[in-house]
């Protein structure tokens, strides 16, 4: 029997299309090229420039910069702040997650809505507000307390490590909250019920069953807090500069700022970036070793309602505590910003007599400010749209097409997630300022490239999650019904992931609208972003104007958020 064997039986749905130029091959190629250009090159350039100068190995610069006293101190601050914020933020996040996910406390929807607010606003707005309230020199609260109680020195000083930690905790604790509350809601309730039947009181159940089972979620959230804090620029910049408290991101900014764009300064920034990446990598390793214990398969099948723990006597005191804390953390800064935007000059008492609408008026008349708003809108929309489509494409290549080398794609797309925005900015400067033939420096395009490098990982993660929920049999059923590969993508896969794609767009649009860390290093005379403009105004002492612009930014963000929730409500998704 002369049986000719075909290629070793493949079970790859897409590869069966067989044509040499197919949609799948094109997508794979584009994905590789894109990730190489956007992610790999900047990272490579940083490493190269830190250790090499004009083709020769030069470690001297690296050693001088890294081991200087000031920089060691900055690194120490960075680590102390990072760890403190993580520990405190995790505890607070856990407390609220348990409160909303497992107890019968009322007003849950109200609290959830309040929790979403820190997500919406950049921490540096909070820093600005708290600085106005609790700054050692002239903070409103301090002044009022000193006058009322005849104190010699201001009781609060927000311009300290403690102050930085406080503000960062108030913006980062929702990371743990969201992860844990979602794990609690999806957890199979019979795991806890079986413990209760066995005789365990509710407290014992929490201790021995619930917490160990959500530990993976806790550690995921905690890691997110840690990385965000280590990489953060705005809060230490606003609260720390006046007292010479530096962290690695702010010290890098200081170098570049002082160097005035000289190549030497940027090289030094690159060296420090490596240090920062080293710290972040240590954090990642720490998580794997200390906290991570594998993920448990605890998701329930049938939809069962978990039994809520009755708080009884503790209910209203806890409710009060929870709401008050939220008001303090969330609402007070917001109100402060709006009020300050109305004031004629910083330091004047906040009474109607001192209010004016001039600050808001100036926003519209100032060309620089209007340009900044336009720039941010352009950048956010472009980055959002581009990352949304590219993220889906790359996720599709990795999950469904599975070409050789898909691990490289995965790694490259997820890498920027853990690289601080400061570092990415430096990498982008080194890559696209002429060294490789293309110069985008001082244009808006360099910021866009940096944003794309930064946010591609966001959209890829969310696209991956939703693609994985589209069971292969749904696409196969379409093929069997007569749809070609492309048609099944169009008719079945895309509609099912569309809600996630839209969510993905806003996941990028909102953060990039108010972004500061990356654009502070990349902006040129005509390419200020909204965040940069607010920071610059404040830096030059125009505090009410900065607040007014921040207030406008807040309004834009609230409106956009509202649009998001309207669009993503009731979507017929997976």
């Amino acid at each position: 029997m002369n049986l000719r064997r075909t290629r070793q039986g493949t079970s790859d749905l897409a590869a069966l299309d067989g044509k040499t130029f197919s949609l799948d091959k094109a997508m794979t190629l584009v994905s590789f090229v894109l990730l190489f250009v956007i992610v790999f090159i900047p990272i490579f350039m940083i490493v190269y420039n830190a250790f090499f100068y004009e083709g020769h190995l030069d470690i001297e610069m690296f050693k001088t910069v890294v081991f200087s006293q000031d920089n060691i101190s900055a690194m120490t601050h960075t680590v102390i702040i990072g760890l403190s914020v993580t520990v405190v933020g995790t505890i607070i996040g856990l407390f609220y997650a348990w409160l909303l996910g497992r107890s019968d406390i009322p007003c849950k929807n109200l609290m959830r809505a309040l929790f979403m607010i820190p997500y919406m606003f950049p921490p540096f707005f909070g820093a600005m507000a708290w600085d106005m309230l609790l700054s050692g020199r002239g903070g409103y609260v301090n002044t009022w307390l000193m006058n009322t109680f005849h104190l010699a020195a201001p009781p609060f000083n927000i311009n300290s490590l403690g102050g930085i930690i406080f503000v960062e905790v108030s913006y980062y604790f929702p990371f743990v909250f969201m992860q844990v509350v979602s794990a609690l809601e999806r957890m199979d309730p019979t795991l806890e019920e079986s413990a209760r039947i066995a005789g365990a009181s509710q407290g014992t159940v929490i201790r021995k069953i619930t917490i160990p089972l959500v530990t993976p979620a806790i550690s995921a959230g905690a890691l997110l807090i840690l990385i965000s804090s280590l990489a953060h620029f705005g809060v230490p910049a606003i609260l720390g500069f006046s007292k010479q408290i530096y962290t690695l991101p702010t010290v890098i900014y200081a170098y570049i700022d002082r160097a005035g764009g000289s190549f030497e300064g940027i090289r030094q920034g690159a060296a420090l970036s490596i240090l920062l990446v080293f710290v972040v990598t240590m954090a990642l390793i720490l998580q794997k070793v200390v906290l991570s214990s594998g993920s448990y398969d605890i998701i329930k099948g049938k939809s069962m309602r978990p039994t809520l723990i009755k708080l009884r006597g503790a209910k209203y005191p806890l409710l009060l505590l929870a709401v008050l804390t939220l008001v303090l953390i969330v609402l007070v800064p917001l109100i402060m910003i709006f009020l300050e935007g109305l004031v004629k000059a910083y330091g004047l008492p906040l009474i109607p007599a001192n209010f004016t609408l001039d600050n808001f008026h100036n926003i519209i008349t100032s060309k620089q400010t209007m340009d900044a708003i336009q720039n941010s809108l352009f950048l956010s929309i472009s980055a959002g749209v581009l990352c949304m489509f590219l993220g889906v494409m790359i996720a599709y290549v990795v999950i469904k097409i599975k070409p050789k080398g898909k691990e490289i794609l995965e790694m490259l797309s997820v890498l920027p997630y853990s690289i601080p925005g400061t570092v990415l900015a430096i990498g982008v400067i080194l890559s696209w300022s002429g060294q490789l033939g293309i110069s985008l420096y001082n244009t808006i395009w360099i910021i866009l490239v940096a944003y794309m490098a930064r946010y591609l990982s966001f959209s890829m993660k969310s696209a991956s999650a939703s693609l994985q929920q589209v069971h292969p049999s749904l696409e196969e059923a379409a093929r069997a019904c007569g749809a070609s590969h492309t048609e099944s993508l169009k008719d079945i896969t895309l509609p099912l992931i569309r809600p996630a794609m839209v969510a993905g767009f806003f996941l990028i649009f909102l953060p990039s609208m108010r972004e500061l860390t990356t654009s502070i290093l990349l902006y040129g005379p005509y390419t200020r972003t909204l965040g940069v403009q607010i920071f610059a105004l404040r830096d030059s002492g125009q505090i009410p104007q900065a607040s007014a612009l921040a207030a406008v930014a807040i309004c834009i963000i609230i409106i956009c958020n509202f649009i998001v929730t309207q669009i993503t409500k009731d979507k017929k998704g997976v």
Partner: protein
Amino acid sequence: MADVRFNHITFHYGKKCIFEDLSLTVEESQIMCLVGPSGCGKTTLVRCLLGFIKPETGSIYVGDRCLFDAEKGIDVSPEHRHIGVVFQDYAVWPHMTVLENVLYPMKKMRLPKEEMKERAHHALEQVRMLGYEEHLPSQLSGGQQQRVAIARALVSSDEVIVMDEPITNLDAKLREEMLTEIRLIQHDIGTTILYITHDQEAALQLCDRMAIMDRDGKLCQIGEDEDIILRPANRFVFEFIGVSNFFPLVRENGHTYLVAGEKFLYDECPPEIFASGKPMEMGSRLNDMVFDDQSPIRGKITRSVFLGSEYVYFIQLGNREIRMQVNALDVMQNNKAEEGQEVGLRFLQPRYYEARKEDHDESA
């Protein structure tokens, strides 16, 4: 209606051979059930038929159309094979209504609007889902979603429909109803159906012919239900259908003995079976045993359980506890045996096979 022919199909997954030189014909307008334990390769064969997997050798024909031929280099892509499918997890598209789901295959075939509506209506009528056209799958129960999947398969193809374990996820009672419905539908329209399952009871209820596949992807027996049950081709088929007891046999001093701790005289066994010199066993289905006071094989009833249509007796025979099943009607006519009673056993349809190392039922 068309027939389906698999000729000499071979497929490996990495180093593991799923099947080798497999041939199977599903006759036109018949329901053929492909039955085998989980993981034996039946789903893989279906995926070869649908075009999601490319075998290494052989050919696949539906009627006159060649869907795959390794030698001639023919490999029709899935969307051109025109085979209706019902998947195990229904695969009903959640973002489309029931009607949109059922219309989809016809849209791809570019049928005229009027014809599409009419065929959809007819299909939904057959699965008793008229009135649910505007519902979304999330508003339907499991059984209803399965019926939508069947309706969609019905409009996809007049020739062949493949069903891959379509009823496993349903309640016991619902499973029975669906089997009857599938049979009735097939009776009406005469499409060829290839039905894949590990549930031999469901297969027996449904099929015109059955093919049994063993763990290594080999077809042990292809035949009608009567053949499979009354004349199993080998031990695997015998054990796979229904539950059976197996007893080691020994030959001593010219007599045959059945071993269960102690030895029971069992001379009904033909001595020729020991010709090969290998150790032999006797297998008997639970309901092929009767009480017989004359029999030297004696045990004691430890428990009797009423199961409705039959009684199950637990009998201590030697050092083993075996199960025996008796039809309720027989019990009514011959009196129920009591717990503690000593009984003699006779085997009505014993079968003799070579002994295996692990010859007790698999523990979990």
